[in-house]
């Protein structure tokens, strides 16, 4: 995992649910590359054409609410999203993303402080966000130790593998 993630911001509002992140009609796809093709399709059908590796999703409240589908986290990770910054996250989405090694950070009031297209960077460990376009700094919540530990290992699968041995 890279501690500093840097990229272009894609800004969304509140209650972006899992049907918008990954529509139910594609749930029978399983390989990550096909899953990646439908990232954010319900909210912005052109998202996959625009997103570059490392880009950052910024949202307001309750990002990822709705179903427990891991596809929602897989699609964003596989599409190259480097981190997601939101005012709050839905619980299952939060677990799914961290488990996959996709960094999520809770940043109060971030919605109003970043515009789509801004270049931003974020320190995953401290929660400090730099908006390079507007030249401002935003301080978010620090991620808990256990979550950071999972991210550092690039996802929980590696952790469990080491823990269980073969």
């Amino acid at each position, binding site marked *: 995992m890279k501690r500093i993630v840097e990229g272009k911001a894609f800004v969304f509002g509140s*209650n972006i*649910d899992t*049907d*918008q992140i990954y*529509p*139910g*009609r594609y*749930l*029978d*796809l*399983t390989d990550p590359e096909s899953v990646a093709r439908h990232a954010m399709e*319900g909210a912005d059908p052109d998202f996959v054409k625009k997103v570059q590796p490392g880009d950052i999703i910024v949202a307001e*409240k*309750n990002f990822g*609410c*709705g*179903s*427990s*589908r*891991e*596809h929602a*986290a*897989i699609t964003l990770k596989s599409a190259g999203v480097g981190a997601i910054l939101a005012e*709050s*996250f*839905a*619980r*299952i989405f939060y*677990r*799914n993303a961290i*488990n*996959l090694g996709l960094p999520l950070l809770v940043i109060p009031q971030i919605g109003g402080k970043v515009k789509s297209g801004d270049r931003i960077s974020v320190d995953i460990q401290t929660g400090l966000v730099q908006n390079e376009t507007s030249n401002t700094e935003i301080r978010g919540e620090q991620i808990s130790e*256990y979550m950071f530990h999972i991210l550092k290992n690039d*996802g*929980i*699968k590696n952790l*469990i*593998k080491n*823990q*269980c041995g*073969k």
Partner: protein
Amino acid sequence: MHALEKILAKAANKESVSAGEIVNCQIDMAGINDLYLQTIRSFYEMDGEKVYAPDKTIVFLDHYAPASTVMQADNQKQFREFCREQGIDKLMDINQGVCHQIMADKGFSKPGQLIVITDSHTTTHGAFGAFGTGVGATDLAIILRTGSLWFRVPEVIRINLEGQLRPGVYAKDVILSIIGKLGSDYAVYKGVDFTGTLLKQFSISERMALCNMTTEMGAKTCYIQPDEVTFAFLEGNKVTDYEVFETDSDFQYSADLTFDVTDLYPQIAAPHSVDNVFPLSDYEGEAVHQAFLGTCTGGRVEDLAVAAHILKDSKINPLTRFLVVPASSQVLMEAMEKGYIQTLVEAGATLVTPGCAACLGTHEGMIAEGEVCITASNRNFPGRMGHGKAEIFLASPASVAAAALNGYITDPARYLIEREGQDEKNS
């Protein structure tokens, strides 16, 4: 401690736990749905060979029951093979129904249990005094691999329900009204404990609808203290081995709310979020193309009963399609025995086999661009049931049936009152 904390403490083999703590818990029952083939993949990616506790694992082929694409069929095939290889005998194939209803029907859901399913509405099992919570595929794979999973002990909110319901008002209206007031992220990461005198009037079916919908306010889990209603239900299902936990009297809730339902009229959640709730009368007369009765929220025997009551000897509006999907095969059988299915089909309903059906927008009753659907299910996000520009209204099963009858949204109370008048005259 709260009863929910006591369940976690026992599962973590600890004397006590408290909110915010991270604990590793043994799981009593782990369920996987057919949407989550990733669970099996993650299991093998973690070098899994044998499932830790096949007897505590249950597989549901419900979301794609029966398969409508080759890919769905293939996913289900892989699940069947996995069950065979791993000695998982609780394979609930496509003839069974929706996971949460099966858990209730078959007596797998019981007080004091820690139940984890790859489905967000696992909060439903609070109706039985269990700690039920939904997870994603990789978390479930960790359970398959190790038998346990980490949890953050949640804070608990109490929602005290008081008063008497008017005719035509149900648990679904109560929970919609609460979500409308509190918002869809009010209970994120938290447990919700329902208390109060209204619960005594609620059957298991109504309690399941109530607990089911707490997911739509973000809740991690839900709880209703088991009482005579619960015990009678369990006895009827011949479930005897369970432990009932009780909340200590000095437990501090993170919030303590009371709702009086006496003045509540039927409610409706308008597109496109579950907390966009209004009195149903605000939408009186809105034409609907499809009325959908079913799912883990509103597809139980009592739901079909009220719909049959409203539609008896009538025909649905020809401009409306009326989909009826019993939540499980047991529900279907019981509803047939009681004649509800016959009544509904005679009235013009399209009967769909037990399962999730159109609820999640994959098959069996999708809606087109510009269409309006009223549904007894739990989500109305854009695209949830088909086209992203279709409109979904959430309401009670009675309100769904009244809309099917008229072809537009209307208060179900008058049919219930009229019918009761007629039934009295006839008896």
